[in-house]
Structures are given as structure tokens and as C-alpha cells.
């Protein structure tokens, strides 16, 4: 059931080195269309590098990354992928509205979408303050709004809920599920294991390798743990003994 006809993201033999150190050791996986795939693993395991490779801003040593059937980073793909970096990549001295207006023009999105998107991330009432004066969570939402502007088919989100309060996190996840229902493919990284349960599918990563490619239910079943954090630890344990 999790094998889609055509994967939104297809990665084959991906190897990446940064600063002379191998960060990704030959990854192979697919990301199903219209679903939320969670990329989970401890910090420093290569999640961000993998996401950068998928949006086409990472120099890769070998392997093939295709998004919507085209090479990652090609002009066709860049117009259809939204990327939210871990640190909010927006202009701090401009307001949320000014940031969105700029990126909307660059993307060729209609001007009306600026207001709509601000509503979607619940920032309409703070849209005219400089981003610098917003809280961390609000800044993160400005960054997310920027990625939503182009109505992308694939949304790559690097730790979008870090440092957010529980209510906001709940809201964001509701937004993500709403997007997935409308057919958007979401690829979301997190190092907080309890977010794994909110995903349709999971990729568990450690030290630049994939430990598992399964659904949350399969993870629970395989490890006999209900708690995602415990399940992940159990998986690592097994990996350690089998190696």
C-alpha cells in the first residue's frame, strides 16, 4: 500500500561528503505522493544534508535524486518544491507581508496569495511588524508561509516545529495534514520522536544511514513499543547487536 505508482521523491545511491567527511552513505528510498513522510533521527545524523540534496542546493558525490520524475534542482522542480530551512530564512528587517510580497513576485504567484497565506499560518494580525521583532515561533511561520506561497506539490520542511509551543505545533500539524489531503507531498524532518506518530510514513536515520523505512504502525509492531522514542531506541539497539 505504501508503494505508490510513482514516487514524489526517488533517491538512489545518494552519497554526500561535507568537509572531507562522508555524511550520507548511499541512501535509497522513495517518498510517496500526497503523504506525510517523516525523516527522524538524532541531530547531526544527516537530515538537513539529505533535505538540501532533495531541493537541489547540495553538492552530491554520487547517486540520483529525482523529484516529480525530474532531476532535483532542475528549473521544473524548483518551481514545484517549497523548502523551509531550519533557521527561518527570511529578511529580518522586513515585515512578514513584505517578505511574502517579495517572494510571491519572485515566484510569479498572484498578489492575493500573500494575504491568504498569512491567514493560513495565523500571522495576519502581526503581518506588518519587522520579522526581527517577532517571536521564534512566529518567525518560523513566516518562513513556512514563504514556502507555501508557490502552492508547491512537494514541501520539504526541516524541523518545522522546533521550539514551538504545543498549541502551535498542533495547529501546524493540522495544516500539514490538510495539505496532504489536497495532494501535497510533505517531507518533514524532526529529532522529536513523538512527532513520528503524526506521519503516514517514517524514515529513521542514524549516522548518515537509513535504519528503517516503514509506517508508524509497523515500527510499533516490529519493536513491541508503543512509545516512538522507545521504539527508536529499541531499533538502534538491535542494529548494534546485529552489526
Amino acid at each position: 500500500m505504501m508503494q505508490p505508482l510513482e514516487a514524489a521523491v526517488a533517491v538512489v545511491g545518494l552519497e554526500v561528503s561535507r568537509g572531507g567527511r562522508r555524511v550520507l552513505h548511499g541512501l535509497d528510498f522513495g517518498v510517496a505522493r500526497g503523504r506525510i513522510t517523516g525523516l527522524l533521527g538524532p541531530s547531526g545524523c544527516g537530515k538537513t544534508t539529505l533535505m538540501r540534496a532533495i531541493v537541489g542546493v547540495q553538492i552530491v558525490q554520487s547517486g540520483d535524486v529525482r523529484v516529480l520524475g525530474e532531476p532535483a534542482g532542475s528549473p521544473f522542480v524548483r518551481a514545484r518544491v517549497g523548502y523551509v530551512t531550519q533557521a527561518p530564512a527570511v529578511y529580518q528587517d522586513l515585515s512578514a507581508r513584505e517578505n511574502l510580497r517579495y517572494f510571491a513576485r519572485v515566484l510569479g504567484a498572484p498578489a492575493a496569495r500573500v494575504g491568504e497565506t498569512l491567514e493560513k499560518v495565523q500571522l495576519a494580525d502581526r503581518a506588518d511588524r519587522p520579522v526581527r521583532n517577532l517571536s521564534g515561533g512566529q518567525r518560523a511561520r513566516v518562513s513556512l508561509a514563504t514556502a507555501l506561497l508557490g502552492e508547491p506539490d512537494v514541501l520539504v520542511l526541516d524541523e518545522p516545529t522546533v521550539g514551538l509551543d504545543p498549541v502551535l505545533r498542533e495547529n501546524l500539524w493540522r495544516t500539514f495534514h490538510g495539505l496532504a489531503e489536497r495532494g501535497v507531498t510533505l517531507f518533514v524532518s524532526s529529532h522529536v520522536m513523538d512527532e513520528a506518530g503524526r506521519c503516514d510514513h517514517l524514515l529513521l536515520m542514524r549516522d548518515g544511514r537509513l535504519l528503517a523505512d516503514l509506517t508508524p504502525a509497523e515500527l510499533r509492531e516490529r519493536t513491541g513499543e508503543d512509545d516512538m522514542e522507545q521504539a527508536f531506541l529499541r531499533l538502534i539497539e538491535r542494529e548494534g547487536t546485529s552489526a
Partner: protein
Amino acid sequence: MTAAATAATALRVLTQLRRDPRTVALLLLVPALLVTLLRFVFDGQQETFDRLGGPLIGLFPFITMFLVTSITMLRERTGGTLERLMSMPVGKLDLLTGYGIAFATVAAAQAGLTAAVAFLLLGLDVGGSPAAVVTLAIGNAVLGMSLGLFVSVFASSEFQAVQFMPTFVFPQLLLCGLFVARDQMAGALEAISDALPLTYAFDALDRVASGGDFGGRGWLDVAVIVGVTLLALGLGALTLRRRTP
């Protein structure tokens, strides 16, 4: 790629500047104050002021735009916004041209104000037309911008970017002929100055200021300024990598 992205970028850069009124004030007022200072340093030596004033109005924008651009570009790189833009369907030349338009606008305001103070209040008298001085000033600003853009890739912090000013700009100022005529320098230095763009920027300004014949050499100067600007912009576009390590 698209005029819309270029215009949006120029507008965005100008809006960012407007959010920082102190920087705008410094950009606009400091050159005017320095020209005023120069006028009274050479108090009673109107001839010296006339000789140096014109070229200085034309060279200030080069210096300030070099610095402002390298810092702005560095921020764009380190703040992640460049990476975001590179993951979008935007052309590199759209971005660079947008920057160019924004900073040329600022340079026009800066040179216009400085020239107004110098010509109207301080009685600066150049042989040629003040409009030609301002036009060359704007050209030099775009030259400074394109060089600043190019060298910003070699800076990984704002401290380094600031140090590029004495590294890249001061030697050119010393060798361009402003302080000492180039034919009076050590032979090796004169040869080096032949290869530095500011030499040509100064020569064109000096020709206008002295009121002599602009002539073929003057137009060669202009061609060098335009050529180096395009070359630096091209190199700058090459250093704007979509993919980074």
C-alpha cells in the same frame, strides 16, 4: 529571466535600506560632509579644492557601494535567504541586476546630494559639466557594487568583508593618480595602476574636472569601467552557486 523578479529584488533591497534610516543618513550625508571638510582643509587654495573635489565626488560612491554590497550579499548568504532564492525558479542575473538597480539609485542620490553641496554651497568649480561628474559617479557606484558582490564570496564573516575595503579599495585609491600623478610613481607601481579599474575611473573624472578634452582616452576610461563592471558581475554570477558543499 524575468523583469518582475528583477524589479521586485530592487524594490526589496531599497525597502530594507529604508528600514535602516541611520545607514541611509550615513550614506547620503557623510560624502557631503567630507567634501565640506576638504573645502576647509584647502582653505584659501581654491585651485586645489577644484582639482580634487570633482574626482572625490565621483569616487565616494565607488567606496561606499563596494562596502554596502559586500556586507548585504554576505548577509544574504549567511542568513539563508540566498539558499532559499536558489531553491526557487529565479535567475541569478535577475538578482544581480535587481541589486545593481537598487544601489545605482542610492548612488545617484548620494552623488547628487554631494554634488549639490559642493557646487552650490562650497563654490566648487570644475572645468567640465557637473552633470558629467554625477553620471561618472553613478557608473563608479555600479562598478564598486559589482566588485563588492564578487569579493563577498571570499568573506565568511562581516569582519572579513569590512577588511576587504582597505585590501581592495585603498591600494587603488593610492595608485589611481588622485594623490600623486601616476608618472611620478615608481615604474612598477605605474604599471600596476594600469591594471586597476579605479585608475580609469579617476582619469575620466579628472578629465571632466580639469575641463580639458575628454577625447579618445576619456571614452576608453568609460569602456574600461563598463567592461570591468560586466566582468565582475559575470564572475559574481558564477560565484552565486545553486549548489553548495
